[in-house]
């Protein structure tokens, strides 16, 4: 159990007076959006009094909680507001939220910390300082009331935004004292609550952002309308690394609504028109010549060849090593070897990439869905050619993110580049689905050769994992690599930390032969646990089978030193009835993993008919995220992660031909539908003492649990994905 945490607050950190808030408000006034649209889009425009950076309380007791991370469906907006509310002791029914802009944050020395919303970091990366923000505001509000009454703060208590002077029974509300509180110096120290005293953290409160999503009022960036706004449709070179050679604008200049045809950076062309449909229609008619560049011979087959060479190459980076795996395998009574392959996949957010930009010689503003406001601002600054204090980004709720809109702001760069060619005019750039499919930052491709050895009792004596394939960091952020190693490649197989291997293997070697094809990789919900958990959990099942052992018992034996992972595995096994007969024709499979600091497991129940048709009937899932801020939203995330993970398993594949992606839309890049959706039983079992992720971890276990159940049903071990390419008829 966590003890009371004494937090030292630097006075400077919380020296935020209403003057700076006023500056923030003037930025708000600069928005050309209508007030209602701005509000609906969640863009910051609150009026003072601002008690501190996180908390604004209006005279009617409305509490506005500032949220730096982005809401893209994962519920972080509500969870973060719960954290602040817990310490603030305000009335939850009067809580609303708003996004500060990254420009405001920069002007205030990054008072809101990181805006990055990825790696399941929203809650676990900021719980400490957002709770602190709530606690500091509470202390200032109580002090303001005590000062007004001329009493000691120790005689005052607070609940649901009402401050009571206990000896006299006098009461006041946050709304009445917030203006005075805003003038007080913040306390040097505040104490955060002991988790056992939490009232709203851990409660399944409803999301704060549901109502507008039911009636069409929720404004996504694609819905923005501004006076004088024009619309742009874009095409970038379909070959990776290729450039725009030329285009013949004269062929479309006179088409309805067309205002301008512009070169965008060095690889794209856009048509700007009154409406987007006109822009797209003209772009489809525009003659374009591409300089296809150096990658026209790259294909799925050539990439496979590259990866195959890596599977047996002499040199590789080591991610995890103990004992002497070569010796152990040599001495094994039985060795098992298998090679797996995981394909490129696209994020395919429902809302295609888009951004709206307005550029003048002294200011550039962007409105966009982004998982990282500060990165979007950097992209804006770079493309605008203006100093940082003359740029800003207004975040809008995302129509899905999944990693596509965090590290990459190509769509922002393009929008600014277009707007720069039409000074003073706001331009909304919206990609077609086809553009979105062809210009992703794809889930990287890897293969893995797994070799395991068993002794005569069927115990695992050695395991050698050789991963060959693409590094995300080498392409996206080489600065995060150490000595050339991309540690993310080993997620779920590392010796310790957030992505620790769930097993104790006496002799273990996990390696990565980095092979980077010219297809841009990116962070994709779950990142590398998607394939690594498939490799590990499928192969552990293969080993159990070779040892003639029950897959649960085989795992348990290797998990004595991983009690929390063992606990989630046991929980799903018990709930699913592992060891007891399933209904006729139903077969079960297990998987367990530690990812993004959470312990997760799944037991899938499937059937496969004589024609090889798979039906996933039910998945029992368990997660131990340490602390569970909002259990009903955790359940929603587990179910959602299964849809993402199972869509990938069943259908997800981008193939490469002539240096580009072959898929174009949902007809050849399908996603799972209602009819394929299994029943999901979620066990949320927070054990306390740590903060684990929610949005991503469980994605790891859906696919391997289903694959192991398919093996149980058919005797077939599928090692190449997606399953749409596999014949599942019984072996």
């Amino acid at each position: 159990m966590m003890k009371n945490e004494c937090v030292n607050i630097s006075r400077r950190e919380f020296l935020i007076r209403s003057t700076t808030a006023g500056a923030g408000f003037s930025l708000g006034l600069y928005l050309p959006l209508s007030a209602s649209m701005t509000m609906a889009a969640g863009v910051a425009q609150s009026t003072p009094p601002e008690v501190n950076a996180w908390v604004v309380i209006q005279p009617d007791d409305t509490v506005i909680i500032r949220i730096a991370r982005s809401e893209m469906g994962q519920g972080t907006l509500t969870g973060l507001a719960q954290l602040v509310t817990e310490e603030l002791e305000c009335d939850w029914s009067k809580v609303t939220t708003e996004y500060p802009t990254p420009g405001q944050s920069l002007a205030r020395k990054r008072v809101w910390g990181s805006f990055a919303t990825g790696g399941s970091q929203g809650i676990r990366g900021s719980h400490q300082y957002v709770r602190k923000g709530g606690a500091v505001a509470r202390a200032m509000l109580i002090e303001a009331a005590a000062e007004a009454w001329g009493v000691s703060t120790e005689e005052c208590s607070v609940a649901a935004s009402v401050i009571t002077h206990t000896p006299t029974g006098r009461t006041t509300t946050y709304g009445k004292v917030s203006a005075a509180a805003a003038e007080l110096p913040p306390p040097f120290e505040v104490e955060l609550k002991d988790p056992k005293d939490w009232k709203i953290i851990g409660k399944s409160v409803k999301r704060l952002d549901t109502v507008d999503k039911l009636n069409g009022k929720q404004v996504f960036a694609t819905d923005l309308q501004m006076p004088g706004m024009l619309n742009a449709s874009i095409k970038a070179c379909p070959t990776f690394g290729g450039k725009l050679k030329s285009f013949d604008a004269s062929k479309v200049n006179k088409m309805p609504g067309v205002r301008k045809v512009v070169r965008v950076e060095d690889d794209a062309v856009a048509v700007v028109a009154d409406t987007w449909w006109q822009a797209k229609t003209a772009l489809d008619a525009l003659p374009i010549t591409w300089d296809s560049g150096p990658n026209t011979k790259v294909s799925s087959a050539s990439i496979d060849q590259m990866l195959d060479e890596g599977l047996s190459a002499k040199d590789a980076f080591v991610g995890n090593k103990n004992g002497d795996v070569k010796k152990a395998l040599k001495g094994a009574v039985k060795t098992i070897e298998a090679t797996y392959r995981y394909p490129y996949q696209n994020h395919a957010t429902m809302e295609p990439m888009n951004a709206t930009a307005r550029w003048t010689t002294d200011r550039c503003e962007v409105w966009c869905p982004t998982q990282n406001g500060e990165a979007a601002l950097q992209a804006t600054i770079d493309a605008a050619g203006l100093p940082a204090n003359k740029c800003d980004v207004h975040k809008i709720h995302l129509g899905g993110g999944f990693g596509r809109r965090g590290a990459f702001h190509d769509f922002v760069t393009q929008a600014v580049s277009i707007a720069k060619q039409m000074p003073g005019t706001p331009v909304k750039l919206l990609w077609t689905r086809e553009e979105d499919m062809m210009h992703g930052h794809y889930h990287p491709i890897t293969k893995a050769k797994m070799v395991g050895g068993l002794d005569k009792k069927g115990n695992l004596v050695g395991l050698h994992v050789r991963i060959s394939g693409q590094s995300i960091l080498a392409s996206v952020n080489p600065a995060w690599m150490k000595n050339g190693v991309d540690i993310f490649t080993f997620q779920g197989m590392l010796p310790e930390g957030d992505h620790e291997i769930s097993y104790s293997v006496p002799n273990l070697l996990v390696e990565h032969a980095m092979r980077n094809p010219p297809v841009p990789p990116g962070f994709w919900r779950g990142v590398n646990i998607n394939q690594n958990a498939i490799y590990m959990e499928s192969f552990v099942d293969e080993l159990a089978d070779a040892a003639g052992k029950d897959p649960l018992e085989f795992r348990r034996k290797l998990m004595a030193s991983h009690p929390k992972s063992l606990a989630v595995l046991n929980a799903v096994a018990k709930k699913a009835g592992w060891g007891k007969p399933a209904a006729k024709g139903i077969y079960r499979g297990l998987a367990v993993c530690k990812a993004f600091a959470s312990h997760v497991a799944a037991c899938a129940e499937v059937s496969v008919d004589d024609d090889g048709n798979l039906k996933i009937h039910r998945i029992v899932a368990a997660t131990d995220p340490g602390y569970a801020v909002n259990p009903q939203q955790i359940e929603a995330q587990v179910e959602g992660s299964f849809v993402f993970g199972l869509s990938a398993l069943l259908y997800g594949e981008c193939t490469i031909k002539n240096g580009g992606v072959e898929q174009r839309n949902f007809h050849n890049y399908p996603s799972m539908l209602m009819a394929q959706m299994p029943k999901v039983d979620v066990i949320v079992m927070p054990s306390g003492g740590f903060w684990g992720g929610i949005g991503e971890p469980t994605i790891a276990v859906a696919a391997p649990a289903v694959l192991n159940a398919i093996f149980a049903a058919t005797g077939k071990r599928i090692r190449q994905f997606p399953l749409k390419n596999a014949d599942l008829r019984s072996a």
Partner: protein
Amino acid sequence: MSKLKINGKLVDIDVDDSTPLLWALREQLGLTGAKYSCGIGICGSCTVHINGKAVRSCIVPISALDASQEITTIEGLSADGNHPLQQAWAELDVPQCGYCQPGMIMTAAALLKDNPDPSDADIDTNVTNICRCGTFNRVRSGIHLAVDINKREKS
């Protein structure tokens, strides 16, 4: 100039008549509840009702429409957001990112009009919208809950 009947009102739309209904709604009438996602009639994010039937508006050109048809968008589904499906969706916190949800709700509303108490199999057959966040199980529960709300309201 085309005349259409949208959410009970006659409106004039001045666009090339090859323009899909979706873009006329979004760009001419400011009705942005129906969303663009695939543009080829697969994903269902753009779903509206034409004479009570769920239609993927991204592939219906204005030329195929006239004022005799009743077109309903998410904005016109209920007077104040109180359609049984909207109530059920709020009760169960169905949406995640929410981008596909107007289409999801319009699809479900058309289903309930034809079939006031659909089975799971009926839902599987009729609700073929894509949701990448993965709200399917809550969508299913939401449809069943809306059936209950409907019955309660009628009794």
